[in-house]
């Protein structure tokens, strides 16, 4: 007597047989047949061929049969739109049925049939149902508006359904209110700009009233909607919080988490001195803890959210450490999350317990979990200074277990502990060295090599150890190779007499036999440093390193604030803003926390610092793998080089290696201080010195100063955002380039969008095509407090080192502050490089024009320019494009122009101005240059200048 009989297939022609049964006269047989059809549908079988037969069964008094037919229709109407029309009449009739259940069912099903033709017929019945006397029908109709909007948004707006929906927010029945809110939220999501959910104190009040009475799901919709509201002051925020707090005791965890979201968001507006603020903090802890006793899937989502909450307001859960202890039967995904939160909550008060737990975890079976536990011990050591000693001894115990992956993880974290507490725990190095052979993972090998190099003077056989790594140099990963190079150089600087051969060997391995540019460049830099000035090398390579602090994996404050607004959503599970992953990203609105209204607090950065972190310490960061620039030579981004670096004269558009020229000139120089070290022949891979450059770059320096004297102010493009705050832990940089009276500058606007004060700014450019470099250090005179903006003009010169970039005008910039180092790249307009003495002699122009081969000529169109020849000439001149001659050929003006770039490249131009429309000209630009790759960019400069 069970439904499984519907699955038994008869020999052949199942569909045929069903068809016959569907057309049977007997009601019972019909129903059974429809059930069979539905059963096939549930397992994914295609039974769409039966469409007309099933629809024929629709007109019936039997509610069950009707429901079954409706189920079928919803599934297949889309594939048979013409047939679906047959059902319309029955729908319209059912919407008039005296039984509210049938009215609601009809309107619900119609909304699910995503066929355009049907939607037209839906409007009238829907309008009636929205005003139905029965709330059950009204609430179903509210949802139907959202469905219809998804199919045909325009239709919904034209028919005025949105207004009706808004009216339903004031309905007397809480379920209708909840569904109206849900429907409006959905529609608003696809129209972020529309002001659909116009929340004001009156409507908020209605929502809060409905909140107490509607079902759990309705409560979620209402709470999520409330979270989007911004109260006008702290009193309103408090009163909303008071009315939302009871939801924290709801049995449905989604209700609880949505309530937590509202509270976390509105708390932002409350003054911390308020008694209520403290009460609220206390009330938030128990429900969060309760979430952890739910099913593991719920726990996982809850833990991901708690991770955010703990970072934003550590005080809420600081006494609840124990609930995050891992249970042996937790699924692995729950275990890993709990571990993360344990570390965030670790403080001096509870560190003993935490460590005891972590030690247990490190002996578990699951490899991932064990690794994370070992890392966690290291993080505890860095976070809670008082525990460092205990952590180190725990790690040593773990190393004694000789479990391969435990040992490797332990060595990686011990390296970080050394960096945090230098000269404190080096006694353990001997133990570490014993395990050298068991290290097979790059990260652990690199860490070990770093330790050996850093403490070379205390390890007797450091040279042997490093030499043993060197044997398989080419099989190592880049990370290990780089580390090995640095470590051997360190060793050499510490024990120069014994390790000459070793350093020679590693330098030649790195520079000659490697294809990796990072490795080669670093090798060259060391080589040059050692050969030019070993004392400086020592200062650089063995410089004191900044201490690291624990907060390496905190979410940056701007992102954290945004994520707090998304508590309970997918974004909170992935810890990414929805714009980063939601498909289509159709108008995702960035949400932000409301500003605090109480005036007695300026910033809240000290509050957000996690408990136990010593305040006042600069949060330097453990350099990550990709952080090569900071890692290089252990060099901090110091004040920029203001004078020309090693090479300046060999400027050409080709590939010019910074080191190429200098190296051979330095060859054979006997470095002082390191005895008679002899560096071998220059590696053949180094490009040979470039012959006489076309225009001497150095001479430009003088040209600049003895400029033609025309006070030219070239066109300045408006500032653009180069580095968004999201990418730079709250620092936003926008800027532009200007050229005035022969000097180039970079006009920057720095905005602090983080919660902490920013200091210690510095800037550096990567090598670029034209040798642009800062001519002075970046001077930000006062610390930049949150929400403050400064404007700085940074003078630039063009004597920096040169490397051809792609695109040519690409500039990569590194900006440092007390928080981190950030990288961005920008394109500069080429006309900032047009020098003032770019006017060529007439004869010279003719000769050069002929001289440059025709294949170097490039042609471009500039359309719809509103200027005449005269104006064009003047305008271009102010940007250092000089008109040498002017001709009129057959009614067209021809301008012959020249310009010169800072590196001495001349560009010749022929500009043909032909009247296009009555008021606009079309310009035709022919450019000739010995370095044709600049033409494209010169053309772009022309276009920008002329169109602005």
């Amino acid at each position: 007597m069970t439904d499984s009989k519907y699955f038994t297939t008869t020999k052949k022609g199942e569909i045929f047989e069903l068809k016959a049964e569907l057309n049977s006269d007997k009601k019972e047989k019909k129903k059974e047949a429809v059930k069979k059809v539905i059963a096939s549908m549930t397992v994914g079988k295609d039974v769409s061929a039966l469409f007309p037969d099933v629809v024929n069964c629709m007109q019936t008094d039997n509610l069950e049969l009707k429901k079954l037919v409706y189920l079928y229709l919803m599934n297949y109407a889309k594939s048979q739109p013409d047939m679906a029309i047959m059902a319309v009449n029955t729908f319209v009739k059912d919407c008039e049925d005296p039984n509210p259940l049938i009215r609601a069912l009809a309107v619900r099903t119609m909304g699910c049939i995503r066929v355009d033709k049907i939607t037209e017929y839906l409007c009238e019945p829907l309008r009636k149902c929205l005003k139905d006397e029965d709330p059950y029908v009204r609430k179903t109709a509210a949802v139907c508006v959202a469905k219809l909007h998804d199919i045909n948004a325009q239709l919904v707006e034209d028919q005025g359904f949105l207004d009706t929906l808004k009216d339903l927010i004031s309905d007397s029945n809480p379920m209708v209110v909840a569904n109206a809110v849900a429907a409006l939220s959905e529609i608003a999501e696809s129209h972020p700009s529309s002001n659909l959910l116009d929340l004001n104190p009156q409507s908020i009040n209605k929502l809060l009233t409905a909140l107490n009475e509607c079902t759990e799901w309705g409560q979620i919709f209402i709470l999520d909607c409330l979270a989007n509201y911004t109260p006008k002051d702290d009193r309103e925020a408090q009163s909303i919080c008071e009315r939302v707090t009871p939801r924290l005791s709801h049995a449905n965890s989604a209700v609880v988490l949505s309530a937590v979201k509202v509270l976390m968001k509105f708390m932002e507006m409350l003054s911390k001195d308020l008694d209520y603020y403290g009460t609220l903090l206390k009330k938030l802890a128990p429900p969060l803890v309760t979430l952890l006793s739910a099913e593991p899937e719920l726990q996982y989502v809850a833990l991901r959210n708690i991770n955010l909450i703990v970072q934003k307001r550590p005080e809420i859960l600081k006494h609840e450490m124990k609930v995050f202890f891992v249970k042996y039967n937790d699924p692995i995904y729950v275990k890993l999350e709990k571990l993360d939160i344990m570390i965030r909550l670790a403080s001096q008060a509870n560190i003993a317990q935490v460590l005891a737990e972590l030690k247990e975890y490190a002996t578990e079976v699951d490899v991932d979990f064990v690794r994370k536990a070992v890392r966690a011990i290291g993080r505890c050591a860095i976070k809670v200074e008082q525990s460092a000693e205990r952590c180190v001894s725990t790690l040593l115990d773990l190393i004694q277990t000789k479990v391969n992956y435990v040992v490797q993880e332990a060595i990686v974290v011990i390296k970080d502990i050394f960096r945090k507490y230098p000269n404190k725990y080096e006694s353990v190095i001997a133990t570490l060295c014993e395990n050298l052979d068991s290290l097979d993972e790059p990260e652990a090998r690199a860490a070990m090599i770093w330790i050996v190099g850093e403490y070379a003077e205390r390890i007797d056989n450091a040279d042997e150890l490093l030499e043993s790594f060197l044997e398989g140099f080419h099989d190592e990963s880049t990370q290990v190779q780089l580390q090995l190079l640095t470590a051997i150089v360190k060793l050499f600087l510490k024990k120069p007499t014994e390790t000459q051969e070793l350093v020679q060997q590693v330098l030649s391995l790195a520079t000659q036999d490697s294809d990796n540019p990072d490795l080669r460049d670093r090798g060259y830099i060391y080589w040059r440093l050692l050969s030019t000035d070993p004392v400086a090398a020592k200062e650089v390579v063995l410089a004191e390193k900044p201490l690291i602090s624990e907060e390496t994996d905190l979410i940056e404050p701007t992102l954290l604030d945004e994520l707090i607004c998304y508590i309970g959503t997918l974004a909170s599970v992935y810890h990414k803003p929805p714009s980063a992953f939601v498909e289509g990203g159709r108008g995702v609105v960035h949400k932000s926390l409301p500003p605090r209204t109480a005036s007695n607090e300026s910033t809240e950065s000290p509050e957000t610092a996690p408990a136990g972190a010593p305040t006042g310490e600069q949060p330097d960061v453990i350099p990550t793998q990709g952080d090569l620039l900071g890692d290089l030579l252990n060099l901090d981004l110091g004040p920029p080089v203001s004078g020309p670096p090693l090479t300046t004269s060999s400027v050409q558009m080709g590939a010019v290696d910074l080191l190429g020229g200098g190296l051979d000139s330095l060859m054979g120089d006997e470095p002082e201080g390191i005895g008679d070290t002899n560096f071998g022949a220059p590696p053949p891979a180094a490009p040979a010195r470039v012959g006489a450059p076309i225009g001497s770059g150095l001479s430009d320096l003088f040209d600049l100063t003895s400029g033609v004297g025309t006070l030219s102010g070239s066109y300045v493009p408006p500032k653009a955002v180069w580095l968004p705050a999201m990418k730079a832990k709250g620092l936003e940089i926008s800027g532009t380039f200007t050229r005035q009276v022969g000097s180039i500058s970079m006009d920057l606007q720095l905005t602090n969008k983080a919660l902490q004060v920013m200091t210690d700014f510095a800037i550096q450019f990567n090598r670029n095509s034209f040798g642009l470099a800062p001519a002075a250090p970046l001077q930000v005179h006062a610390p930049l407090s949150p929400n403050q903006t400064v404007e700085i003009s940074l003078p630039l010169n063009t004597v920096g080192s040169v490397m051809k970039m792609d695109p040519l005008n690409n500039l990569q910039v590194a900006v440092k502050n007390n928080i981190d180092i950030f990288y961005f790249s920008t394109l500069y307009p080429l006309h900032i490089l047009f020098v003032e003495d770019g006017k060529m002699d007439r004869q010279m122009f003719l000769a050069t024009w002929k001289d440059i081969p025709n294949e170097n000529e490039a042609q471009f169109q500039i359309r719809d320019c509103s200027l005449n020849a005269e104006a064009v000439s003047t305008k271009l001149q102010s940007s250092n494009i000089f008109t040498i001659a002017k001709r009129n050929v057959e009614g067209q003006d021809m301008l012959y122009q020249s310009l010169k770039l800072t590196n001495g490249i001349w560009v010749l131009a022929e500009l043909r101005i032909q009247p296009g429309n009555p008021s606009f000209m079309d310009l035709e630009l022919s450019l000739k240059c010995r370095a044709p790759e600049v033409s494209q960019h010169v053309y772009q400069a022309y276009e920008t200048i002329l169109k602005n």
Partner: protein
Amino acid sequence: MAKMIHSLFLINCSGDIFLEKHWKSVVSQSVCDYFFEAQEKAADVENVPPVISTPHHYLISIYRDKLFFVSVIQTEVPPLFVIEFLHRVADTFQDYFGECSEAAIKDNVVIVYELLEEMLDNGFPLATESNILKELIKPPTILRSVVNSITGSSNVGDTLPTGQLSNIPWRRAGVKYTNNEAYFDVVEEIDAIIDKSGSTVFAEIQGVIDACIKLSGMPDLSLSFMNPRLLDDVSFHPCIRFKRWESERVLSFIPPDGNFRLISYRVSSQNLVAIPVYVKHSISFKENSSCGRFDITIGPKQNMGKTIEGITVTVHMPKVVLNMNLTPTQGSYTFDPVTKVLMWDVGKITPQKLPSLKGLVNLQSGAPKPEENPSLNIQFKIQQLAISGKKCLAWV
């Protein structure tokens, strides 16, 4: 948020998709391949991550009663919402068919389909209260299916469920019993981590009060406690009037009809009365030998004069253990050499003779000495006692 659940797939442990339901358009079964991939990676069915992202969808799943409920999501939704809903679906199946199993679902596939349609509309949960659902779609009983087949009547109710729109949506109207009765079960579960030396690392009580109410009309109940102070972290069934609890610490409610969970609560370790049993264990392995000794003893601690019964001990032995040769003083034990789980069904504790389990452990030869402190899990029952010391005072 809307279209929150696009589709639902039910998958059994061997990876067959045996039911699919689409609320909007049909999503191909192939989307489940991402789920299978994650399942393969997780090795253990319980370790499949609940949220999986795929290029066009998100898969949010729960694992219940050896079945995976995999929902397909297309837009930003609250995952808890989805997970809660999926559990509600599983609860409803359990309620309707007595078990939530592949066989039960397949046997009642049409009802399942009707239920799913009734529970969710365009991503908005519609009716999830079992009282209301049962009015809309009658649960299958043998009697009813016989009657239906004779009279031709159906399983689908044709009137609007009465509770649906009232302010007490959880209760149906017109309930009548000849014997009016109400039962409450207080179940408390201690969750404790105890270290090798026997001291408690962490302990808390997870408690629930389950009710079975068979009362006519619209009964209004109040329930008060001796020491409500203990209940500071409580989740309530929506029927409980929160205001009254806040001000008077009294549970006042109009109950749903039938079985439901009234409250669940947590009592943290500060308020905890001592744990009523203790375990002494010693497991040792000799270096370079393929056997070890195993010895555990259980005894009552402070049991307030009540007998401790239904004790079972589960031990996850290290992977290198091949077999165990043990003698229990009472009860019986089993060791599963595949999962390495030792189960000892102890029964009752009689204070005169403490139960113990002793013997030899055989290890894989040549394997390194394993960890000596595997985790032990103990379950037991004490009738008529709430560990938290909570007592009910009065019924009105």
